[in-house]
């Protein structure tokens, strides 16, 4: 029926009308008993929705949740420490390899001068030593990672 605001009454009870709509509803309800009656029913329903029982989480649930979060944070902290430790070891190993090569190169030059012989093969032996060291470390890291994974931890 023209003029009636039945489509707006539910939203009016929910306080969800814009000012123009609210003014239109208010003006209409002053003159329309039918819409005023329905508006009262919607308000009653809205009040019922606002008085619903408010369940709270149990203490056990809260305690369980805190414990789970603490465990997760501890796992993250361990992973972060492991990543930092691994990064430090890699940087240290490279630094050591470079410094060691410089020292070997220095010693090789001095010895060659004193002994009058060629030390060229030393470079190849040193390279082989460094590569073997890296391969060994890599294998150890893989084995350690597999073991940690089987134990249910991640590195």
């Amino acid at each position, binding site marked *: 029926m023209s003029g009636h605001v039945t489509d707006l009454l*539910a939203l009016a009870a929910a306080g969800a009308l814009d000012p123009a709509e609210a003014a239109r509803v208010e003006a209409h309800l002053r003159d329309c008993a039918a819409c005023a009656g329905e508006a009262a*029913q919607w308000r009653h*329903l809205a009040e019922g*929705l606002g008085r*619903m029982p*408010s369940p*709270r*989480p149990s203490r056990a649930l809260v305690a369980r*949740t805190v414990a789970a979060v603490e465990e997760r944070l501890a796992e*993250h902290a361990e992973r972060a420490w492991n990543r930092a430790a691994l990064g430090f070891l890699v940087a240290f190993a490279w630094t050591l390899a470079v410094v060691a090569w410089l020292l070997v190169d220095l010693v090789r030059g001095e010895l060659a001068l004193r002994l009058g012989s060629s030390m060229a093969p030393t470079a190849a032996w040193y390279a082989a030593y460094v590569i073997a060291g890296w391969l060994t470390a890599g294998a150890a890291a893989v084995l350690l990672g597999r073991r940690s994974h089987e134990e249910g931890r991640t590195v």
Partner: protein
Amino acid sequence: MDPDRDDAARLRRGDTSGLTGLMGRHQDRLFRYLLRLAGDEAVAEDVFQQTWLQVAERISRYDGARPFGPWLFAVARNLALDHLRRRRSESLEEVDEPAAPAGIESDPLAHAIARERTGRVAAALFALAPLDREVLALRFEEDLALPQLAQTLGVPVPTAKARLYRALARLRERMLAAAPAEGWR
């Protein structure tokens, strides 16, 4: 001084006292919202725990300049909807058959007793689809104004308004269907 921002900063540093502070202020509202959205206490408890786990893991993404509550509810909502979509074959916006209130077996007598105990409105609310329950809970229990309601739902204001209207209309239909002689008051 914003206690939420301070506790979030503590949590970001790995200090769990920040978590207990945030939970203390938001756990009741969050649980009530999840119970309304999920319609099942076991699901609500599961999502409640998952929500705080995700908050702890993603706390670095929280913008301390904004209120913590809406961010928390957004995390919870996404988890709850994912959970419900995995469990339900039908749409989250529609329900074909009225569901029993949470924890009640599909027993007509138990349903009637529960209806009397919890009230007609509560019983009709339980029978609605999850997204209908959600919008009604956010408007009438969390008392969110329309703009905040739209922001929480992640939709424009007119869409939120339409969802609110449809949810109220469906609630009225449920109440009439449950007790036609009593009307919907």
